[in-house]
C-alpha cells in the first residue's frame, strides 16, 4: 500500500493563499487506510481550514468530496463538474492521484495536501512501516522474504554493517537491523547457507534509476484508452 501523511495545516494554508473556492478531494483507498486523506480526514481538514481562515479574516469556501481512488480516470471523470466549479483542488491522495488530476483536468489547478512517503503495510493500528523499494526486480527469496533495500538503511546486499546494536540499526533504536531479521529468519528456516553466496551488484536499470517506468500489457486492446 502507498503510505501517505497529511501535510501540516501551516503548509496547506500557505498553498491555499489566493484561492477562494477549494475542493478538498479525498481518496478512498490507500489514503483512507493510513488516516491521511479519507472521507473522515477530508471533513476534519475542511473544518480546521474553515476555522483557521475565518480567524484570519479570509473568505474561502471549502467543498468536500471523496472518490474511491484518484488514480483511475473513471473516478475522476465522475467529478469533472465539481473540479471545474472550484478554483483549486486540494488533493488528499498520493502523488499519483495529484498528478492524475492535473493530467485529466489540465485547465484546473491542483495542490498536494498529503506527502507520499513509502510503500508499506500497517504493522499495527496507527503504525505504518516501509517494506518495498519498487526496485523492479524482486529477489526477497534470497534473503528470507525480507527486502535488504527497503529495510536496510544502507541497502546492503551482503550485510550487516558494523553499526548494528542489539538487533537495531545504527540510525535509530526504533529501526530493526534488516540483516539481523534476515539472519534470524533464514536460521529459523534452516537456510543460512543462502548467505554464503556473495550477492552481485544490483542491476538498477529496473528501478527508478533507469528512468521513469511503464508497463504495457501484452494483451491490451489496440484501440481506446482503457
Amino acid at each position, binding site marked *: 500500500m502507498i503510505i501517505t501523511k497529511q501535510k*501540516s*495545516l501551516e503548509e496547506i494554508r500557505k498553498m491555499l493563499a489566493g484561492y477562494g473556492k477549494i475542493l478538498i478531494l479525498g481518496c478512498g483507498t490507500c489514503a483512507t487506510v493510513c488516516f491521511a486523506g479519507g472521507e*473522515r480526514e477530508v471533513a*476534519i481538514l475542511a*473544518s*480546521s481550514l*474553515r*476555522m483557521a481562515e*475565518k480567524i484570519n479574516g479570509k473568505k474561502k469556501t471549502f467543498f468536500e468530496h471523496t472518490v474511491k481512488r484518484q488514480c483511475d480516470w473513471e473516478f475522476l471523470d465522475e467529478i469533472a463538474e465539481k473540479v471545474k466549479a472550484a478554483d483549486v483542488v486540494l488533493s488528499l491522495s498520493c502523488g499519483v492521484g495529484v498528478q492524475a488530476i492535473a493530467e485529466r483536468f489540465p485547465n484546473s489547478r491542483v495542490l498536494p495536501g498529503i506527502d507520499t512517503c513509502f510503500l508499506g503495510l500497517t504493522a499495527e493500528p496507527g503504525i505504518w512501516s516501509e517494506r518495498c523499494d519498487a526496485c523492479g526486480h524482486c529477489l526477497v527469496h534470497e534473503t528470507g522474504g525480507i527486502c535488504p533495500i527497503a529495510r536496510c538503511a544502507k541497502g546492503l546486499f551482503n550485510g550487516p554493517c558494523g553499526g548494528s546494536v542489539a538487533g537495531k540499526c545504527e540510525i535509530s533504536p526504533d529501526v530493526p537491523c534488516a540483516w539481523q531479521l534476515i539472519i534470524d529468519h533464514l536460521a529459523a528456516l534452516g537456510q543460512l547457507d543462502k548467505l554464503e553466496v556473495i550477492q552481485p551488484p544490483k542491476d538498477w536499470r529496473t528501478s527508478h534509476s533507469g528512468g521513469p517506468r511503464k508497463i504495457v500489457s501484452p494483451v491490451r486492446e489496440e484501440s481506446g484508452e482503457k
Partner: protein
Amino acid sequence: MKNLKPRLVVFSCPWCCFQMADLSGATQLDYSPQVKINIVPCSGRVEIIDLMKTFESGADGVLVLGCLEDKCHHQNGSLTAKRRVSYIKGLLKDIGLGEKRLEMFMLSPSSGPKPEEIIGNMVEQVKGLGSSPIKVKRKT
C-alpha cells in the same frame, strides 16, 4: 478581554459520575446558563469531527468527561477519547483557537473531584480566554 458569558459544551458519558444525567439540565448550574451537556454512551464515541464542528459552530470551550483510564465502562473508550482530545488540542493551536479551549477530565463516580467543580473551573478558564474568534451569529 474576559468573556462573561462563555458558551461551553460538555460531552460526558453517564458512567463517570452518578449525577451526570441530572446535571444535563442546564438550569441546575448557577454560574452560567450557557453550559450545554451532551450525554454520550461513551466518551470514546465522540469523534474528532464532532468536537471540530462544535468549535465551528462558535463554542467558546469544549469539555469532555469520561471514566478513569482503567475503569472505563467500555474498556478503553476514555483512553481513545484522551488521545483524540490531545490530537485536537494540537489542531486548535494550529488553527489559532488555542489549546486551552478544549479539555478532558477522567472522573470516578465515587471519589475525586465532582463534575460541577470541573465544569465550574472550565467555565472560568474559558472566560479568561475571551470569546471564540469564530464569531457565529446565533439567535439568543
